[in-house]
């Protein structure tokens, strides 16, 4: 029957096909999809392609452009300031991991039965609501010699003379900045985790209680497996986000004194020095790094969570099952999912 209609359709003229149900369907699909595609193309891919093109030129925003081939990419690796700015991402990555651990910890505690949990949620989420510029000012004063942070530490018995200069000392100022960004985003991440934890079926906790599982075991065997997607997503976002850290160093230290991250350096090169070509090359390079990082993380999590579906099945048992399933391909698809 299928081949029959196809043969008939082949003989139809284009006009007839257009009027047929199938033709109408296609027309409507194309008509609907073309608008978002067009928007996506004009505002995302076209500018991106332009930027990639710019990265091969020596150019300013205005004035003549000169094609220089791969010179910008060579300069990228030859320049010490760019390479060293990339290393600063490591600080922010470590910060991101600490932040996730902290957020997950707080989220777990607050989603259990805690007094005034709503108040704590609010207090911890609050920093996310302050705008970035204000945070810059807050932390500039916070870290100023003899101001907030030093005063608090003095209450705890530290001597002012033994405290470092939080933003001046190059061995510590990046940690200070990372601290401010953890303070800011931790609450937001916590709220995301709480949301995910709340979707876990309550009966599972009751069952676990009956079985005598303690809170940590509940976390390990119920909560973590249930929210692993959102944890993975948050880790990926945080790591790629730390590659493009910008706000904290830009607002608090203006990227000076060894705190210029890749984005801050890129901003200076593009806007102060007007080397648009080099800045574009940096953007393309950063994109490649983010791609690589994301793929690596994907692979890692695939590996880390490979056992998650078969919690009550020992590893060797699973191996056996998979082996057995290999003989029957249909079963393998179902088992391996």
């Amino acid at each position, binding site marked *: 029957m299928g081949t029959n209609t196809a043969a008939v359709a082949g003989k139809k003229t284009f006009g007839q096909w257009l009027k047929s149900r199938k033709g109408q369907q296609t027309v409507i699909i194309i008509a609907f999809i073309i608008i978002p595609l067009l928007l996506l193309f004009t505002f995302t891919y076209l500018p991106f392609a332009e930027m990639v093109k710019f990265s091969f030129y020596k150019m300013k925003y205005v004035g003549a452009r000169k094609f220089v081939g791969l010179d910008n990419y060579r300069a990228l690796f030859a320049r010490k300031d760019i390479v060293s700015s990339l290393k600063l991402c490591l600080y922010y990555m470590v910060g991101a991991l600490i932040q996730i651990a902290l957020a997950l910890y707080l989220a777990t505690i607050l989603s259990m039965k805690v007094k005034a949990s709503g108040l704590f949620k609010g207090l911890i989420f609050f920093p996310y609501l302050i705008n970035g510029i204000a945070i810059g000012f807050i932390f500039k004063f916070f870290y100023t*010699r003899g101001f907030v942070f030093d005063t608090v530490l003095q209450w705890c018995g530290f001597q002012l003379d033994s405290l470092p200069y939080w933003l001046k000392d190059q061995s510590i100022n990046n940690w200070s900045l990372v601290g401010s960004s953890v303070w800011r985003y931790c609450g937001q991440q916590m709220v995301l985790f709480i949301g995910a934890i709340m979707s876990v079926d309550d009966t599972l906790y009751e069952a676990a209680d009956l079985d005598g599982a303690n809170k940590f075991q509940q976390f390990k065997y119920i909560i973590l497996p249930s929210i692993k997607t959102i944890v993975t997503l948050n880790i990926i976002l945080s790591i790629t986000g730390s590659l493009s850290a910008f706000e904290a160093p830009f607002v608090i230290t203006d990227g000076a004194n060894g705190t210029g991250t890749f984005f801050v350096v890129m901003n200076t090169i593009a806007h102060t020095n007007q080397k648009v070509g080099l800045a574009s090359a940096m953007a393309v390079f950063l994109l490649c790094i983010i791609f690589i990082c994301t793929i690596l993380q994907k692979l890692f999590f695939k590996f880390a969570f490979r056992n998650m579906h078969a919690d009550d099945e020992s590893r060797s048992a699973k191996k056996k099952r998979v082996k057995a399933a290999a003989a029957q391909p249909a079963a393998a698809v179902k088992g391996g999912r």
Partner: protein
Amino acid sequence: MKWQKAMAAALAATMALSLAACGGSDKKGGSGDVTEVKYADIKLGEDYTDLKADLKMMTNRTDMLDEEYTGKTWAQYLEEFNKEYPDIKVEIEGITDYSEDSLLRLQGGDWGDIMMIPEVDKSDLSTYFLSYGDVESVAEQVKYPNRWLYDGEVYGIPITAVGRGIVYNKKVFEAAGVTDVTKTPKTPEEFINALKAIKDKTEAPLYTNYAAGWTMGAWDDYIAITATGDAAFKNQKLAHAKDPFADPGDGTGAYNVYKMLYDAVEQGLTEEDFSTTDWEGSKNMINEGKVGCMVLGAWSYPQMKTAGANGDDIGYMPFPMTIGGKQYSPADEDYCFGINVSSPADNQTAALVFVKWMTEKSGYSFNEGGLPLAVGDENYPEVYDEFVANNVEFIANEPAAEGEEDLLNELNADSELMIAANGNDKIQEIIEHASNKDKSFDDIMKEWNQKWSDAQEMDGVEVK
């Protein structure tokens, strides 16, 4: 339905009318009827006192339109002007985002008779603005006619100009022997010694304002006229100079300007923690004598004065550098008056009269703390007391040579030094290295010279 039709018709009619009005003004503008009068020919108070004209002027000084303005308002200036020229009426339009909006209005064409010239290409000057005459004739009457000079013709007369030195607390500096206006430090060495002498009395003898960034870039403004006494250095010689940051050996030049900063930081004569400096707070600190001095333009003087109870303690000293026995200060032009080349001839003449009156008789520059503009006018506002007492010479930078207008920008971008163009980072690095003692000053300057000569090579600039 009927009233809708009527509305539509009315709308169409209004639009057609307004279109016609636009066309009309265009025709009037494009008449090509240009006044024969030149700036230098006008004798204020004698010529054109009965001229009738309605002028329109665009200004960036919107604050002066406000009754609440503490200085002299536009209305007060106009009242005085109309005593002498009762029939020249000037309507003033304030524009808040001036540097952007004025360019748009200029291109639109319908902007009135006088404006503050925005950043246009010099080659376009004659298509928009009336020439005040050749530079020789204008220079006989106006001190700083160079800002908008093209092909020997002057297209802009500055509304005011400011000098550059160091804002300081007089009371604090008394301990360093600066007991009257003539005793300000004259050389970098004297300056550093003065800072040492006041070290115990202040929290920071010299406050760098490192964290604000732009306050660091301000140091670049001192390497040209202040450090060389040469009007051609910045726009003509710097681009061709071999190793402009090398030590000339006589305590002058860019090298010694930046070295003052390096030495002050290295010897602990600046604030304890540079990374958390606070620009707004610094104004009060210098007012109260917690800070000795700051290296900033003359515009900062009124702000420091009003930032606390001790306004009388604030002074402004010439930059401590002496070239051949003389100290110099740049005269940096503010916005300049430009007259619409397509206005009717009578309006242009009236506009010339108004600009000349503003320059010579209004006292605008004096009232706003600027340098006197008319040749022969030696009436300096109090901020320049120390400059006058020490015979400091004010010089305006000469414009770049023809065809080289963009050369400095080019070299700045390629070398990434961005001298006097927001190159804040490099000066911040001076402070970092001086504080951490991880790089000597000579090495920094060597690096800059290298960057500069690399850029010169890249752009094929002839090194003289």
